[in-house]
Structures are given as C-alpha cells and as structure tokens.
C-alpha cells in the first residue's frame, strides 16, 4: 500500500511532493559526495604527509635551526607555500571556481581576539620546545616515532586545558 501511495503521489504536480522528491534526491547525492570528500581529503592528507616528511619540517632540529636563524630552509618553505597558496586562492576567487561538487568556495576568516596573541605566543613556545606543530605530530606518529605520542597526548591535554579554561580566558 505504501509504495502504491508513493507512486501515485510523486507524479502529482503539488509543489510539496516535488520538494520532497528533490530533498530525497539531494540527500542521496550528498551521501555519495560525503564519501568522496573523505576520499579526496585522505589523498590530500597523504600528499601533505609525504611533503612534511620529505621537506624535513618534521625534524626537531630543523625547527630549532629556524628559531636560531641558522637555517633559512623553513622560512623559505613557509614563504613559498604561502605564495603558491595565495596565487591559488587568487585564481579561485577571480575565476569564481566552485569545488568539484558545485558548492561555492568561501574562506571563513579567522577572527581577531586576545587569544590570537596569547594563544599564538603559547603555540610558538610549544612549536619551539617540541619541534612540532599539529600537522607534523601526525606525520611523526605515522612514521613510527614512538616519542611523538608524548607530544600528541600533550597536545590533547592542552586542548582539554583550553576547553576547561575557555570561559575564564580573555577573548
């Protein structure tokens, strides 16, 4: 009975039925799209992990050398990465490119608040001490560096610390 009902309802020109059909069709595409998003994200992540490792930004010594001004390697990497990313974003904006699912690409600007300064300084200190940033922690773990689990657990503890203290911190 239910199927017969549906069949007789769907071709009807009533706008409600059409909207329902459309929503159903959309949700079924977005399920396939979601799987695709995860697949491409995994691919881009792998690409990035290889680059993190082979460019040596995963090495503690490289970070230390950067802060000691003994090595321009990391400055040049960050500089050229930002330049290329900027050109890419310029083209995306200028050429009104959507993502491959047809959705508009929009950068959501990160807002300014006191945490950008205070948290930024704390992050920089951690970057120098552990010689890692969140991205390279994952690359170190994947490479089988057991000690990196201390950095990782620390980072999670830091995140919990922020979750806990957020209401009392200046923003």
């Amino acid at each position, binding site marked *: 009975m239910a199927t017969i009902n549906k069949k007789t309802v769907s071709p009807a020109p009533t706008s409600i039925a059409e909207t329902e059909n459309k929503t159903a069709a959309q949700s079924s595409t977005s399920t396939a799209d979601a799987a695709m998003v995860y697949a491409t994200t995994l691919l881009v992540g792998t*690409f990035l992990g290889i680059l993190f*490792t082979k460019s040596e930004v995963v090495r503690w010594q490289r970070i230390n050398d950067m802060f000691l001004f003994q090595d321009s390697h990391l400055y040049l990497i960050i500089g050229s990465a930002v330049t290329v990313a900027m050109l890419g974003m310029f083209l995306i904006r200028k050429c009104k490119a959507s993502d491959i699912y047809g959705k508009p690409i929009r950068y959501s600007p990160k807002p300014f608040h006191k945490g950008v300064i205070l948290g930024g300084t704390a992050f920089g200190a951690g970057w120098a001490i*552990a010689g890692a940033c969140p991205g390279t922690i994952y690359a170190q773990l994947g490479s089988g560096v057991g000690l990196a689990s201390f950095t990782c657990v620390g980072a999670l503890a830091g995140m919990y610390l922020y979750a806990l203290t957020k209401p009392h911190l200046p923003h």
Partner: protein
Amino acid sequence: MTDFLLQPWPWWFSGPLIGLTVPLLYLLAGKGFGVSTSLQQLGALCSPGSKLAYLKNYDRRQGAWTLVLALGIAIGGFTGSHWLSAEPIEFLPARFFSVWGAIKLFIGGILIGFGARYAGGCTSGHAITGLANLNPPSLIATIFFFVGGLGVTWGLGHFLF
C-alpha cells in the same frame, strides 16, 4: 629521479607543493586547510558526555573530515619515511630519548594544543591558509607564533635544549 627523490627535498620543490594543498583541499573537498581543529574533534569524540561548552557544542559530524586529513598525514609520513627515504630520518635528537626528553615533548605538546586552539589555528590554519587569504588576524597570529618560539629558543634555550 630516485637519487633526487630519496634525498631530503629542497625548499623550492616542497614549499610550493605544500602551498598547493590549500587550493587543492578547497577544490577537491570544499574544505579550508587547517590541522589543529582535529584536536577539538578528537576531544569531542572521546568525551561525548562532556559538559564543557567547547566540546559539547562542537559538531562532530561536520568536523569528521579533520581526522581523515590527520590520518592521511600519518599515512604520508609513513610513506615518506619508509618508502621515499634512502636513509632514516632523525625526527628527534638522541637526547630526547630520556625521561626529561619525554617531559619536554609533553610540555611542548600542551602548549601546542592549548595555544593553537586558543589562537584559533596553528601554522597550517593561520600561517599558511590565513596568510594566503590575506586575513589580518592570521598575520598577527603568525607574528606571535614567532614571538613565542624565538622567546623560548633564545631565552630558555640553554636550559631546555
């Protein structure tokens, strides 16, 4: 080809390719590049009953892709160090293989996790994606990343390293 690829990659080769991930992640997945949100995602996932607004109000489904990105980076790390390197990579200096070393990494980790979430992003979200999108707060964040890093290295370096 293999001679070049199995050695550490020079900046002019890896830097531009790292930068390319920002437009690629937008085009292929519709996502803004940033890694430290994955920490919040992990926290929200591991403590589902948490009363902390930071974790309770976080949309776990919407942020699931951050863990996929993290997994990808880990796979890439394995690939890069095991299959694409002629010699083993010295990730951490030998002196870190000690209790004091582990404590330092843990403390550094706390500062990384706390600072990145407090600042609203890390090197990837602020210094690369933010600067590439000419976002002024990201420039401030990047400057203070270096304030913190340079301060610790030059101020406490003799004690810590």
